[in-house]
């Protein structure tokens, strides 16, 4: 009777293992780069051909290997990175499983050239299908060069499953980019089919982010750093107006290893909360440094997933650090005009000289209308938006007498420097001198120290009410103005049950509502800041909006109610405001935690810097 069960041949088992470790050319690149980094390389070159299918070559200037080590390195479960079981608890290198080279060698033709500091000559190895085909000596600088050719030549199924060339190349590029961001001190050189994709000199983290993602993105970044006993957290957040429509550009590194964690991403998204419009995602780079004992990276051979000892602590820390970083920064988008939009001064002069003003104006697309667009969203059509880290302490009261006109009250709360100074509410101040105007009953324009600020009155008010409502949910009852004539409202059956369900919350909003049965509710009191007479309409609107939001997936009842109420109770575009109302509005706006974005993620304030105006008028 012959035995049916037998041990697999090493070749076969390696191929099977390779299936896990080497899934695509990018996996090879990742494993090789990690080896180079573990070997302390300061310069790493990656050369690929045909998206890695034909050739992947990684050259580094790391420790290198002796002849013996070189041969050993291709054995399965051979590694220099860990020794004993306890090492597994505290992994400080990127690799440790001892699988990569063996797995790669099982599915490709591999050549290795390496020289350690102590050797005179480099070792050259050619390995094919797990066998050493050639072993000679050759010359090489200190370091290692590994060439992987004809990946998956012996596993046609896997080869056929590779995606399109562009996709595979993008995967490789992603791997290299991530490593480059995580290791800014290392020089990177990345070539695909003779085209240089990256050539990065050693630099600071900021420099690297700028080099990799471009200047525009890097200028919009908010840097943050925070350390506690559990871990230290640093990184960059993009201002909300740089949010992307895809989740692609989020990078999380844990002890410099690129990881993917839904939990962490969720924490960051949550911190951005209403700063973003629906369906857009913030760009961020997050570096977690954490005691290796507190995490387990040995979850999957690709080591992208990790397990934390205490998920919820990490979640909370990330949430609060990111939120703080966002709140502490001026998120006011400012507007500058596209190069081509600005009158080039020479051109302008010529036109003034020869044809006079009128022509010059006409050449500017008809009328001198400023192409001010809303800042965030949608591919940024006309204006380019550059963020500005300037506190709002720069709101000027008046231009004429800056010295004497500073009776600003200083408000104590929160460390937000935006709040440090605010508009004086002094009614006796001469009104004409206060630089605030309302335009089209829709926007408020105010002079600030270095330019002007445009506020959308509706969303500004919305933000104020939203925050007030949220805080009244948490704290005490709001002021309720009792009504002389209780308003009897007949509602639909479904609205009636909704009111019933929300009654407690509505009361916290400031609605004193009694249920009368038969789909009739009686409003006996309304929030003190609701305009007289609109109680019936506001209740109905809030209910409708609440429903809409529910459909849109806002699940938190209070949040939803606060948003619905804020949206409906706020002054609208088209409402005329007098000077005092505008001053109050601005004052309150800057008391909110997030004056720059409305609860739905639309910008509240847009700033036009003086330089921009100067440029516009050819005053450069």
């Amino acid at each position, binding site marked *: 009777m012959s035995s049916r069960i037998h041990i697999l041949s090493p070749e076969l088992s390696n191929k099977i293992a390779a299936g896990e470790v080497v899934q695509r050319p990018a996996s090879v690149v990742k494993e090789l780069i990690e080896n180079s980094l573990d070997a302390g390389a300061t310069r790493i070159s990656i050369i690929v051909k045909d998206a890695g299918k034909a050739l992947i070559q990684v050259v580094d200037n790391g420790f290198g290997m002796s002849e013996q080590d070189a041969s050993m390195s291709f054995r399965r479960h051979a590694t220099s990175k860990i020794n004993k079981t306890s090492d597994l608890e505290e992994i400080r290198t990127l690799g440790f499983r001892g699988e990569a080279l063996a797995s790669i060698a099982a599915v490709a033709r591999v050549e290795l050239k390496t020289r350690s500091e102590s050797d005179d000559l480099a070792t050259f190895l050619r390995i094919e299908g797990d066998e050493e085909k050639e072993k000679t000596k050759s010359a090489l600088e200190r370091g290692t060069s590994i060439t992987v050719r004809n990946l998956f030549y012996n596993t046609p199924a896997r080869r056929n499953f590779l995606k399109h060339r562009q996709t595979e190349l993008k995967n490789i590029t992603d791997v290299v980019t991530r490593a480059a961001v995580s290791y800014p001190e290392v020089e990177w050189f990345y070539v695909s089919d003779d085209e240089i994709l990256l050539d990065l000199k050693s630099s600071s983290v900021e420099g690297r982010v700028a080099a990799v993602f471009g200047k525009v993105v890097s200028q919009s970044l908010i840097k943050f750093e925070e350390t506690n006993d559990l871990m230290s957290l640093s990184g960059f957040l993009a201002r909300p107006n740089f949010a992307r429509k895809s989740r692609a550009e989020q990078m999380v590194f844990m002890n410099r290893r690129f990881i993917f964690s839904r939990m962490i991403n969720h924490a960051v998204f949550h911190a951005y909360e209403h700063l973003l419009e629906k369906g857009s995602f913030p760009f961020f780079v997050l570096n977690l440094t954490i005691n290796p004992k507190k995490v387990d990276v040995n979850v999957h051979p690709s080591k992208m997933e990790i397990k934390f000892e205490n998920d919820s602590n990490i979640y909370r820390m990330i949430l609060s650090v990111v939120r703080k970083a966002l709140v502490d920064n001026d998120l006011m988008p400012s507007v500058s005009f596209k190069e081509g939009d600005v009158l080039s001064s020479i051109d302008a002069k010529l036109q003034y000289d020869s044809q006079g003003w009128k022509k010059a104006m006409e050449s500017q697309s008809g009328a001198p209308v400023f192409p001010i667009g809303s800042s965030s969203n949608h591919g940024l059509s006309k204006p380019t938006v550059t963020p500005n880290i300037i506190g709002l302490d720069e709101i000027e009261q008046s231009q004429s007498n800056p010295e004497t006109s500073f009776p600003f*009250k200083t*408000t*104590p709360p929160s460390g937000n420097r935006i709040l440090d100074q605010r508009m004086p*509410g002094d009614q006796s101040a001469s009104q004409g001198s206060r630089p605030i105007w309302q335009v089209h009953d829709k926007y408020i324009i105010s002079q600030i120290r270095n330019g002007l600020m445009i506020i959308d009155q509706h969303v500004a008010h919305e933000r104020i009410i939203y925050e007030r409502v949220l805080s009244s949910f948490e704290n*005490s*009852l*709001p*002021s*309720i*103005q*009792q*009504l*002389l*004539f209780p308003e009897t409202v007949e509602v639909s059956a479904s609205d009636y049950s909704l009111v019933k369900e929300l009654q407690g919350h509505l009361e916290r909003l400031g609605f*004193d509502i009694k249920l009368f049965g038969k789909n009739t509710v009686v409003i006996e*009191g309304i929030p*003190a*800041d609701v*305009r*007289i*007479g*609109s109680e*019936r*309409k506001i209740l109905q609107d809030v209910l409708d909006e609440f429903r809409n939001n529910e459909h849109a997936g806002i699940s938190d009842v209070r949040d939803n109610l606060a948003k619905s109420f804020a949206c409906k109770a706020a002054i609208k575009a088209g409402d005329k405001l007098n000077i005092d109302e505008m001053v*109050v509005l601005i*004052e*309150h706006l800057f*008391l909110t935690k997030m004056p720059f974005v409305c609860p739905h993620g639309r910008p509240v304030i847009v700033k036009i810097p003086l330089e921009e105006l100067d440029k516009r008028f050819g005053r450069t």
Partner: protein
Amino acid sequence: MKFTIESNELQKVLIKISGVVPSKSTLPILENILFTLNENKLTLVATDMEISMSASLDVRGSENGSIAVPAKRVMDTLRALPDAQIVFNADTGNNKIKMITENGEYNLIGESSQDYPAIPEFKSSNELLIESSVIESIISKTVFSVSTDELRPAMTGLLLQFKEKEMRAVATDGHRLVRIIYTNLPQIKDQKDIIIPSKALNLISKAIESGSNTVSFSSTHIKFSFKNLTLTSRLIEESYPNYESVIPLENDKKLLADRNILLSAVKRVSLYSSNTTHQIRFSMKKDDLKIMAEDIDFGGEAKEKIACSYSAENIEIGFNAIYLIDILSHIDSQEVIFNFSSSVKAAIIKPVTMKENEDVLMLVMPMRLNV
């Protein structure tokens, strides 16, 4: 049409009626004032189709006629002129108007009087004879609490109710209410309630002259006739909310205080209230009233203690300071009485001394305190 007049005399009358002229109208002709000359009598008419005013004055006329004159232009001109004699000369054929002073000549284009809408005539069913001072007092004490909410048109006017020999004037915006009862009036024939738009009242209070006046009204219109001026207004044909039912009768906690002291204290304290809610609170103990306000958003609080007479149990009640200030400044008695029942029920405020045949009651809804 041609006449001569002193500029300030014309201006005086124009100011009274020009308040009717709508600043923006779908009917551009309404931005004019109709000038009609009959011998030495010049009649001026302005209307916004709801309210019409007409006034007449003596001039030295030389050529009868009628023309619609742009209100703003002519008002601006008169304002800018020193006291001077004006010769007003209009060619009703081509609507060209010429105003000539000693030194200047001002030409403007008018519109044909044919296009100007006629003042509505109505058949009055009632007529009252009222002293100007009474009209003024009714208006000044009530109009401040008329609602501006277009959604509830009934409350945007002043309710006049006639019963036997008494007349009630009521105004409310749903947060406060004023009711004045006048007794011992001559019997009125048709005892219907009418609601007068607040704009008409404001115009009357500006234009009124001393003397005794006729007020006549039907169910659709009201007409105030003064010596040289009449105002005709359409009435608000809506049903007024049942205000009597919301005036509490069981308010047993009585507070007596000096009106002026109280008013100025409320004004001072309210400076420290939140500028969105304007909430202040009254805290009452035996013969002791404390008025407090705090502004949570911006920090800041204020307290004042006021001597008063109060003997019921301790109570705390919140108000919108603006409502209180309005009410207290429209009462003309040395002292006022507050009647409270609880911190969520209406408070009643009355003057201590009242004129004969006049009963004034004001009411304000509290703000529920955030405790």
